[in-house]
């Protein structure tokens, strides 16, 4: 196994098994942390959610007051779950696509430990009342080096893999992964400098804040999710991506326009009109990358939808890429001034964030894990039923969440714009929808627990080796599929 396979006399290529061996520990540690933080974030979200319809739930406890547990929810979701899930994905995908071993494994593992410590310290800091008060950058300054330094290790490893790869060819996922590691350090350092390090005050700080707040999703979570979809969909169905040229157009238009979209979070605020206009234009232009990327993903799937019945990876990946299209359309329209007049400052925005994060980003990260973990560990997923529970809980919980919050948000916004309606009446109106959200949160939590059990079992050494991959079908379905496959092949000939 230690021998390097030779694909051609000049090009040394490391076999997939070699790549996966080198990645096993590093990637498993990042993904395991991500699932732990996802559970923490979901619990913190649930507590926040209950507090918004039953303010006396855990009431009067300063550490758990809404204004503290709520930022802990978002920060553990984006940095805890998002950061580690995306980093694990980045390292494994880049190693696979560059056909190289993961460099500096010890450094990367140490980085993972430090990063987790940073999130823990930052979250406890917020619960103790040491939040910086800047949305999405709440972690106290002393926690930030623990988050930034490990990321430097990931950037170095990514550059090393990319530039020492043997083949000159690159795949679209690699562009996105390279872009993330260039954007994110610049993004977080400029944002910290402008807010918590105090280089900028007042309204200019608010713009920098939302430039960051929007881009941390757009230039970190989104590109990683798109990279995963570009890799997984063709890989599972065994067809090439629909169009190379579209992927090029999608990549560059996404890179150029997403950067500018953030100021729509301040529509109507005390800013010069041009800053908002820039944000609206940036958001509208996002239709270009969203449509091109959508065409590329969905057209690749055409003719292979029957595989959704069997493959766990494909189910999550296709769910993620479809909701990428939908939530991006929603986001672009949301940026319009007439839309913002109603939905800004309401639960609609919260619904949209969860639609994107839990409908698009998270399922693609789950898909990556479903695909890669058996290859990394040499074990199979122990239970198809748990995968099915995870999938349906994710889909149903996320849809219930989004629909309840977006509907409530529109009504809430319309009522707020009618000054004859007393404010407390609006609060009263939203309560049943906020209860539905708690229910949605519970459904999502059940899915996460199902996944945790399966993940716990797959990382057990040499206990649960299965000969065949875990698929989602019964034997009868599987036979039907085989017949259909034969039929399709028959048509081709």
């Amino acid at each position, binding site marked *: 196994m230690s021998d390097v396979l030779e694909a051609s006399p000049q090009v040394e290529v490391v076999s997939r098994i070699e790549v996966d061996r080198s990645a096993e520990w590093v990637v498993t540690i990042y993904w395991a942390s991500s699932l732990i933080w996802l559970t923490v974030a979901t619990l913190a979200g649930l507590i926040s959610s209950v507090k*918004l*319809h039953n*303010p006396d739930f855990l*009431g009067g*406890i300063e550490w758990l*007051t*809404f*204004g*503290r547990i*709520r*930022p802990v929810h978002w920060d553990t979701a984006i940095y805890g779950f998002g950061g580690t899930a995306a980093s694990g994905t980045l390292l494994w995908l880049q190693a696979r696509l560059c056909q190289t071993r993961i460099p500096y494994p010890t450094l990367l593992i140490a980085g993972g430990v430090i990063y987790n410590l940073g999130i823990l310290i930052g979250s406890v800091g917020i619960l103790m*009342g040491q*939040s910086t*008060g800047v*949305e999405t950058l709440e972690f106290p300054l002393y926690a930030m080096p623990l988050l930034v330094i490990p990321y430097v290790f990931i950037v170095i490893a990514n550059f090393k893999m*990319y*530039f020492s790869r043997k083949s*000159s060819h*690159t795949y679209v996922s690699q562009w996105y992964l*390279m872009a993330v590691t*260039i*954007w994110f350090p*610049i993004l977080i350092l400029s944002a910290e400098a*402008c807010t918590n390090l*105090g*280089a*900028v*005050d*007042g*309204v*200019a*700080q*608010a*713009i*920098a804040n939302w*430039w960051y707040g929007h881009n941390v999703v757009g*230039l970190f979570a989104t590109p990683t999710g798109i990279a995963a979809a570009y890799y997984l969909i063709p890989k599972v169905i065994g067809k090439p991506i629909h169009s190379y040229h579209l992927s090029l157009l999608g990549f560059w238009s996404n*890179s*150029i326009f997403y*950067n*500018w979209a953030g*100021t729509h979070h301040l529509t*109507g*605020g*005390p*800013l*010069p009109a041009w*800053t908002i206009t*820039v944000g609206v234009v940036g958001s509208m232009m996002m239709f270009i990358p969203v449509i091109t990327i959508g065409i590329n993903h969905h057209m690749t799937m055409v003719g292979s939808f029957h595989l959704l019945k069997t493959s766990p990876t494909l189910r999550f990946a296709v769910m993620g890429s479809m909701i990428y299209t939908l939530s991006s359309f929603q986001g672009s329209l949301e940026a319009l*001034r007439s839309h913002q*007049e109603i939905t800004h*400052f309401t639960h609609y925005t*919260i619904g949209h964030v969860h639609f994107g994060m839990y409908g698009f980003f998270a399922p693609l990260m789950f898909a990556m894990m479903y695909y890669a973990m058996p290859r990394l560990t040499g074990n199979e997923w122990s239970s198809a039923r748990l995968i099915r529970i995870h999938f349906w809980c994710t889909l149903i919980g996320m849809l219930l969440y989004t629909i309840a919050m977006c509907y409530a948000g529109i009504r809430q916004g319309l009522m*707020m*714009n009618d*000054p004859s309606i007393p404010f*407390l009446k609006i*609060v*009263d109106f939203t*309560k049943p929808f906020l209860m539905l959200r708690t229910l949605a949160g519970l459904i999502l939590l059940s899915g996460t627990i199902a996944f945790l059990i399966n993940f716990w079992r797959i990382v057990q050494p040499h206990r649960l080796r299965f000969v065949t991959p875990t698929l989602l079908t019964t034997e009868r379905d599987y036979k039907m599929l085989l017949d259909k496959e034969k039929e399709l092949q028959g048509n081709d000939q």
Partner: protein
Amino acid sequence: MTSRNIGLVLGVFLTIAASVTGLVIIPNWQFRELQPVKKADGSQYPVPFFGEQLKGRQVYIDQGCIYCHTQQIRMKGYGADIRRNWGTRRSVPRDYIFEKPHQLGTMRTGPDLASIGSRQPSVVWHALHLYDPQITSPGSTMPRFNYLFTELKEGDPLPAGSFPSEVVKLPPQSNRPGITRMVPTERGKALIEYLKALNKTFPLPEAAQ
């Protein structure tokens, strides 16, 4: 390193360099010159928060008030901020020149607080509302901040550092057995001072447009 690789790295870098310039550097440069204006009585607007207000601002931040309350008034004809009496005029960049960190907010689970000090100047109202929002606003989903107050039973002595004038009598509907009065702690007092100081009603000329 092929030219295509350099193109990728450079191009990606340029996309973010452009937005840093456009959305971080230029706005900062545009607002750097903003100064307070002189009022007719010789005082200034805005003035930086100081003393108790500044401590109270820290409490506002650490309690996370921003997650439910904004501090910005949208202009007439866009939303109903002014008609809801949350402010008398739209807010403008000059209102915020001393804000560090900014607390503009993005969510209105509760009403806007840009000028809460002018809407609710009463210390007693703020004390009761923070101690238990159900007293002043039944049905509200705001949390209780009872830990910012010292609860007193009948006959309990005042805690050190508090004055009899700061004691607030609880109304019968407060539903706390045995507790008849309460007095804000240091942090409670500071938060109330800060909320009372929130006032963006001074008619700045640029807000009239």
